[in-house]
């Protein structure tokens, strides 16, 4: 199975991927509220949200982040990731119930580390909705294994 994963050496700077879409449902939001314990009215009170600038409940920002993380794994062959190191992220617009989001990603940096067996791959990510509006964007840093003897 090891060959199926892509090592630091195999990943090229500037590579781009686009994931399939996924429709965010009311159930996704309810499950995420239950899992995280974040019951903010933004995500849970349909009546108050009717009067808000959004007009309805919106998905938790971190739910969108979690969903794009899953979509990313469907956008490209798995990296030989050892660890997620960090991210910088912006929430640009709401994700509403029924919206279909997808992630567009590009390898924006590759850095070798002092340990010769691994390197950091930075991936720029843009989360788009069905109208091609950017709802989230940012960069993630992944620690990826190098090919043995590579």
């Amino acid at each position, binding site marked *: 199975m090891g060959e199926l994963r892509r090592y630091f050496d195999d990943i090229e700077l500037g590579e781009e991927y686009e994931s399939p879409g996924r429709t965010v449902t009311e159930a*996704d939001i309810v*499950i*995420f509220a*239950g*899992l*995280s*314990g*974040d*019951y*903010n009215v*933004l995500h849970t009170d349909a009546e108050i949200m009717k009067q808000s600038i959004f007009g309805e409940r919106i998905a*938790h*920002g*971190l*739910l969108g*982040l*979690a*969903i794009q*993380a*899953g*979509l990313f*794994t*469907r956008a490209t062959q798995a990296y030989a*990731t050892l*660890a*997620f*190191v*960090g*991210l*910088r*992220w*912006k*929430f640009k617009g709401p994700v509403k119930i029924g919206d279909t989001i997808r992630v567009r990603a590009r390898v924006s940096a590759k850095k070798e580390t002092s340990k010769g067996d691994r390197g950091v791959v930075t991936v720029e990510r843009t989360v788009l909705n069905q109208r091609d509006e950017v709802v989230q964007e*940012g960069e993630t840093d992944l620690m990826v294994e190098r090919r043995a003897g590579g």
Partner: protein
Amino acid sequence: MSQPSKFYFEDVVLHGVLETPAVTITEAHVALYAGLSHDDPREAGAVPEILPLCLTTGLGWRVPQPPLAVLAFMGFEWHAMLPVRVGDTIFSRSRTATKRSMRDGGVVIEEREVINQRGEIVHKGKFTFLVAKRPV
């Protein structure tokens, strides 16, 4: 009936520190998270790095203080320094680093650390929120 109380921009104390109660991360948390997001753990017992981050947002609701009147979660940066495993018990400690008043609300930047049962800081980052002002 009185409205539930909220913590508005005016109530936020610059450099104020807030510690939450803790939560033990279980296989059930990981399974629910993986089912919801399709962001699967890399190996048995591993916790996907985004999950503790999600749990800290809920922990913030378990402190003896009304919830922050967040209008929008604008963005954040996050660093994962140490792995989190199933069975670890985490809590978060946050500190208000910046408070900036705007016309419709104010921007609050919060530094947050996630700490495990051994007192190790496993994850840390900075969150930027747009917070409502107290209605007049």
